[in-house]
């Protein structure tokens, strides 16, 4: 194989590249039109996305949250980092840091269909992780997500059940 072949290789590469693009475009458009959750080809609206991201997430009080916990109708979502979660968390809570929301969507959708409510919490009144995880879940179609502001401290002070250990 000689260096003289390089222009020829590039020419055939361009030609093959166009074939691949055409095939991919065709399959992509057909697949998108056939799938149930297909999206419009040109319908993206950044305004709608921003509005969705800024939507206010309802808050829940500690007593309401505890009542739901006793009735086993709630899934607590600990939005803190895994180390804090391992040090102590609300019993039966799952650990979902905001970046990890997508990894849990399928499991949470099954729980949502069973009527569960999701409550995110973190540590301290200024903590934003609970809101970020809640937003991330809402954006991915998880309904009934609420926030327990300063949840961990309130729960701990109330002496409600906690657990320790990794997820």
């Amino acid at each position: 194989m000689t260096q003289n072949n390089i222009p020829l290789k590039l020419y055939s590469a361009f030609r093959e590249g166009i074939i691949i693009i055409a095939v991919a475009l065709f399959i992509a458009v057909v697949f998108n039109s056939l799938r149930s959750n297909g999206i419009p080809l040109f319908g993206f609206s950044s305004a709608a996305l921003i509005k969705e991201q800024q939507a206010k997430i309802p808050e829940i009080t500690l007593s309401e949250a505890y009542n739901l916990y006793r009735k086993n109708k709630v899934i607590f979502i600990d939005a803190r980092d895994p180390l804090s979660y391992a040090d102590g968390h609300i019993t039966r809570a799952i650990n979902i840091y905001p970046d990890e929301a997508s990894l849990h969507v399928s499991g949470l959708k099954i729980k949502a269909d069973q009527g569960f409510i999701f409550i995110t919490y973190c540590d301290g009144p200024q903590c934003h992780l609970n809101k970020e995880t809640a937003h991330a879940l809402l954006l991915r179609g998880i309904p009934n997500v609420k926030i327990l502001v300063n949840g961990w401290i309130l729960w701990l002070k109330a002496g409600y059940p906690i657990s320790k250990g990794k997820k």
Partner: protein
Amino acid sequence: MKLGNSPRSVIPLFALICRLTLAIIFFYAGIEKIINPRNFTVAIYNYQLLPDCVINLLTIFLPWLEVIIAASLVSGINTRGASLLSAFIFLIFATALTINLVRGLDISCGCFGASSGNISWFYLVRDLSLFCMSFFVLIYDRGWRSFFS
């Protein structure tokens, strides 16, 4: 063509390894994005580089392009085209990453759908390495025939 003093037989083998590695990466990245297009749409939007009118089109098209490139690289059909597109895609990704790293945006990479971390210089190095691998495949790969003939 010789590459330094490397034995002649090593070059096609290395090109094959690069080709299959790229195929695995593209296949995984493409499938993740096809399964969850919503995440990818948000990731593209967060880069703040493209007008709204092309974001959905790219969300639909790019994952399938990645999958078809992966299929071409594995099968050895249109390998040159696939490696050229691969190099082009990684160059575009690297440019987009650089712009947003310089801007200081703390956004999700979106490289592998849901399991992507936030952008960092590491991702830029990774993309540039993959760009070099793609270019190597483009120049040196001889397809499956060279191993069976």
